[in-house]
């Protein structure tokens, strides 16, 4: 009796496992085949001199090479600069814009949502090529407008000048990055408990105080999410660089992701490229962990 019960139980368990994995199977095949496997390969080949004609184990040589590689250092500095400027700028601006928009009537609020989300939908490449034209030295709009206003005397080669190129890129990155954060902040702000806000206003709390003491804690999760996705996206900036400057002039706009592309696909140094990819992944992971810790500390 007992044994038959146990076998029945085991048969049921086996059946449940089978059903579970049957549901998981399609997703698992894609995930293991096209995410986990290449991830493992990236780690392994980062320890080799993998290129067109060789594949030897070289230990940590690629990682050591990175420490001496001036261009890699420059690319790292540029990438961190882009992240350090664009993440706060995107977060603060979208919070400000959302706090103005979310009080509006339905129609005006969806107008602004559409406008700021437009560059995301239009697509990075379409947006980038029109900016390239506007930044262009001889027939670009920007030079014309600034000259007409008397801000500059002669035409500037915006993307060809070490002093300006990276700022032009940060500007375009900004316009393509704020769409999602604004939409998220609008919805988060509309979900803030209205009775708390009213009670505080009745008690004579200032706007600033209402924001800081009541709204800010309630939109913390949204802020955290925005910080993390904006950080990840800014670290991986590539299309803008490849289309506008190819990392130039004189590596002034070279970034880690572009450098990886250059080494892996122009020089066929796959091993070195993968090692840089691993370092980038670790850096992004660290940033995300720090942001999570900070946000948690803030909440307590």
């Amino acid at each position, binding site marked *: 009796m007992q044994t038959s019960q146990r076998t029945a139980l085991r048969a049921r368990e086996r059946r*449940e496992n089978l*059903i*579970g*994995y049957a*549901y*998981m199977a*399609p*997703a*698992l095949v*894609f995930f293991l*085949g*096209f*995410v986990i496997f*290449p*991830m493992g*390969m*990236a780690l392994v*080949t980062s320890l080799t001199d993998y290129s067109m004609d060789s594949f030897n184990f070289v230990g940590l040589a690629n990682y050591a090479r990175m420490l001496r590689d001036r261009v890699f250092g420059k690319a790292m500095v540029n990438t961190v600069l882009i992240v350090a400027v664009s993440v706060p700028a995107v977060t603060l601006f979208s919070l400000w814009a959302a706090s*103005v928009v979310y*009080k509006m009537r*339905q129609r005006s609020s*969806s107008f602004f*949502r*559409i406008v*700021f989300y*437009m*560059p*995301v*939908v*239009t*697509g990075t*490449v*379409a947006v980038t*090529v*029109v900016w*390239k*034209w*506007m930044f*262009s030295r*001889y*027939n670009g*709009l920007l030079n014309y407008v600034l000259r007409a206003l008397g801000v500059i005397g002669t035409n500037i080669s915006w993307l060809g000048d070490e002093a300006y190129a990276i700022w032009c890129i940060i500007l375009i990155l900004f316009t393509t990055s704020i769409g*999602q954060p604004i*939409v*998220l902040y609008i*919805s988060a702000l509309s979900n803030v408990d209205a009775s708390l806000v009213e009670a505080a206003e009745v008690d004579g709390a200032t706007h600033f105080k209402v924001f800081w003491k009541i709204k800010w804690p309630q939109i913390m999760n*949204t802020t955290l999410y925005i910080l993390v996705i904006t950080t*990840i996206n800014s670290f991986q900036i*590539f*299309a803008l660089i*490849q289309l506008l400057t190819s990392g130039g002039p004189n590596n002034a706009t070279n970034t880690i992701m572009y450098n990886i*592309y250059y080494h*892996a*696909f122009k020089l066929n140094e*796959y091993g070195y490229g993968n090692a840089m*990819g*691993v370092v*980038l992944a670790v850096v*992004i*992971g660290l940033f995300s962990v720090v942001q999570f810790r900070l946000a948690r500390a803030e909440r307590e």
Partner: protein
Amino acid sequence: MQTSVQRLTPYRVASVALLVLLSLLFLFPMYWILTGSVKDIQAVNAASPVWFPLSPTLDNYQRLFDRPAMHWLWNTVFICLTAMLLTCASASLAGYALAKKRFRGRAFLFAVFISAMALPKQVILIPLLKEMSFLRLHDTPWAVILPTVGWPFGVFLMKQFSENIPGSVLEAARIDGAGEAMTFLKVVLPIIKPGIGALAIFTFITAWNDYFMQLIMLNSQAKLTISLGIAKLQTEMSNDFGLIMAGAALSAIPITAVFLLFQQFFTRGITMGAVKG
């Protein structure tokens, strides 16, 4: 939606004015693409910009369609739609199992999916390229589609949505004698439908904008996506901005039209994806 009557403080007036000004700046690139695409070569290269094309020409579009531009657009739509369908199907099955089925290794699998999400996607592109060449899928749409479908965000999102399915409903279906397939189709799907909608939109936009993946995986002229096509125009005809704008317009107009039509779904999708995520 309106919570309280707005008092018109000077700060508020200034903010709204600034926002209107900024939104004009945001719309301007789109305007410049559209008008630029119908300007002739003199107007495009004029030292003082032609704000409005008084004598529009379709010449740029004619030259654009000398190339397989419609083909590029079709390739892109095919990649995005296929990736979207496969992602929604596989992720909703897996998400449901992770949320509601008890099987060995469930917690471990979920942990692996979550940790993989923090990884920058581009990092795996080099090995992925080698893998696709090995599978003889390089330079086919599948080289872009398969990794997009494998990305774990969808599974995660659908797991969060499936948590909302009440156990009692599943139990009732079981007592009524519904099999696994029947339960999934008739009970589970209707409940997680909003989640699938959000995931569909999210996947479509991600695939559309995944320029790096397309750049690495697709080479031959007939296989390009519209983004790659424009990029190619730009490298080959670097100062022919009229032609390049025609390409940009061809890529931007259809997806913008879809966006405007389904605007509420988009914003709801974006929000749900994040709140649940």
